[in-house]
């Protein structure tokens, strides 16, 4: 079978996908099947939290694909995530219809508040789910394609590239903060009611979104692994290790980078689209440079160039974040800062690197 072939030499991936499968059977069962108050009952809050982590994991996988295997450290992948999220958010806004505070059937609340008379042109079509799905792929994809085409063609590499990706997400953040942009400004898009007619607050919908996230993560992982296993994947690693050499044996380095970067941005966009209905809000804060840098650290913590390390890192760091924000809110930034330093100085290969080294020694 195709999946078996993709995972043939990927032990970590086999373990990860088995665990993911277990999680996506067990968690919904324990949530829907057991009454509240039962010792093993998984609350909807926890389920949604896990669903959120899964979307983060997909985002981390997309970053690992370009950073770990292609050597491009993007400090702006949060932008693609947020754009996917905004596309989904726009659909969810349109689904509110006349149930908003102002009861205007044609305009979202924030537009009524700003005294706008009609829907801006770029909001048209977002009342249809299929159109939204296309946009979730297209918007981050096209942005990544144009940006990548400009950057890779003129051979912007290394730190320069990282800094301009950061400039990209920073510029988008400033733009989305503006009310005139028509994306809800500061407050972003929120107060969502339902998706495809299903109530977003109901447990069943939450389970559905959780499963969709798990499925997307599994599919995204397999797609990335398939690319890495192909000759194109070997070319990508070759570019990471010796870009000039790759060029001199006849590969169009720019094109390889461009397509993989674009694919990765699309994955990030899909992750964002799944994230928004689960957390119930999308605002310009998602574009903040800190978010994009933080997600690079998830990958670094887990271990670069492994894919499953990215998943592990995203889950682990975000679990720690949730724990800290509840127990020691002041401590989180200290912990995150320390994590940045520890990982780069002491654990360049992340947790996975540590585990495999242990394994090799015993």
């Amino acid at each position, binding site marked *: 079978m195709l999946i078996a072939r993709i995972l043939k030499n990927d032990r970590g991936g086999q373990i990860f996908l088995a665990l993911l499968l277990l999680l996506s059977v067990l968690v919904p069962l324990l949530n829907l099947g057991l009454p509240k108050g039962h010792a093993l009952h998984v609350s909807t809050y926890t389920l949604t939290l896990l669903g959120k982590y899964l979307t983060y994991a997909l985002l981390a996988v997309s970053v690992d694909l370009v950073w770990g295997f292609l050597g491009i450290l993007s400090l702006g992948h949060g932008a693609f995530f947020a754009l996917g999220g905004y596309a989904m958010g726009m659909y969810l806004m349109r689904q509110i219809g006349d149930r908003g505070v102002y009861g205007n059937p044609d305009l979202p609340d924030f537009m009524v508040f700003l005294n706008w008379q009609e829907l801006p042109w770029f909001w048209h079509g977002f009342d249809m789910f299929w159109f939204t799905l296309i946009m979730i792929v297209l918007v981050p994809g096209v942005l990544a394609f144009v940006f990548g085409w400009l950057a890779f063609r003129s051979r912007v590499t290394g730190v320069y590239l990282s800094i301009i990706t950061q400039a990209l997400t920073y510029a988008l953040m400033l733009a989305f903060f503006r009310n005139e942009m028509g994306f809800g400004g500061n407050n972003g898009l929120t107060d969502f009611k339902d998706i495809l007619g299903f109530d977003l607050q109901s447990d069943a919908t939450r389970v559905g979104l959780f499963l969709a996230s798990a499925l997307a993560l599994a599919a995204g992982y397999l797609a990335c692994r398939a690319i890495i296993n192909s*000759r194109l994947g*070997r070319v990508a690693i070759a570019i990471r290790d010796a870009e000039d050499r790759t060029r001199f044996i006849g590969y169009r380095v720019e094109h390889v980078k461009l397509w993989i970067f674009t694919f990765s941005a699309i994955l990030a966009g899909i992750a964002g689209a799944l994230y928004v209905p689960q957390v119930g809000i999308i605002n310009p804060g998602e574009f903040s440079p800190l978010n994009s840098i933080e997600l690079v650290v998830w990958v670094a913590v887990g271990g670069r160039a492994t894919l499953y390390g990215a998943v592990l890192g995203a889950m682990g760091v975000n679990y720690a974040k949730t724990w800290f924000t509840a127990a020691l809110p002041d401590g989180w930034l200290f912990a995150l800062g320390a994590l940045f330093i520890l990982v780069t100085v002491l654990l360049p290969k992340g947790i996975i690197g540590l585990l495999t080294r242990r394994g090799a020694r015993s």
Partner: protein
Amino acid sequence: MNALEQLRRSVDRDEVFEFLRPKINVRDLDLTHGTILYLEDVSVSFDGFKAINDLNLYIDAGELRCIIGPNGAGKTTMMDIITGKTRPDTGSVFFGQRIDLLKLSEPEIASNGIGRKFQKPTVFEYHTVFENLELAMEGDKRVWPTLRATLSGEDKDHIDETLTTIGLQEHAQAYAGALSHGQKQWLEIGMLLMQNPLLLLVDEPVAGMTHQEMDRTAELLTSLAGKRSVVVVEHDMDFVRSIARKVTVLHQGSVLAEGSMDDVQNDPKVVEVYLGE
């Protein structure tokens, strides 16, 4: 080209627009003059320093040419120009009679049949020896075909053949990063062979090799000439003497002398450059 010239050419009915011309198939380069590479009046400077100064160089088809010269003579910069890494300020560089190398990018030049070995051996350290050769193999190197590429039995045989030629059969599954310096040099030469180029540019192939390895390299390079043209840049004079038929001496970015090893060695200008006053 000035505007008038442009106008004249666009009304000239014999002139065919660039994009309408048929793509030249590399394998039928027009080699009627027996020359595969033309460098004419090439100059390039970095921050006022003239690395290449009015250089003229012609390489014949099937020839094995050695290029020597003191440090800073412009040997590596010359290779950079031929392979598209550096663009010259003036001059023209043609491959065969039809292909203008100055209009092509590095990968285009490579797929047109010019292969290059770097001064510092550069192989893909996190790939196995086998994979290194696979990546270099001649074929469609665009993104989509590369994604879908599979190894045919023929390809495998071809790679195995090359492995034998460069003496690395036993290391086929070893990571390239684990090879010795000399073995890396050989692997890089093997990668060149997989590209099946018409012209090989080889920058310091025997640096860091033992005498035995050197002899084998000499043998390999000589056996390649004939079917392909080989240009070797080397400092090691014994090695040059062992393979050279024709030697070009570069000095301060232009050709100082050209001829057989003996001629060149007895040329007073060369002696002066190498030994000082």
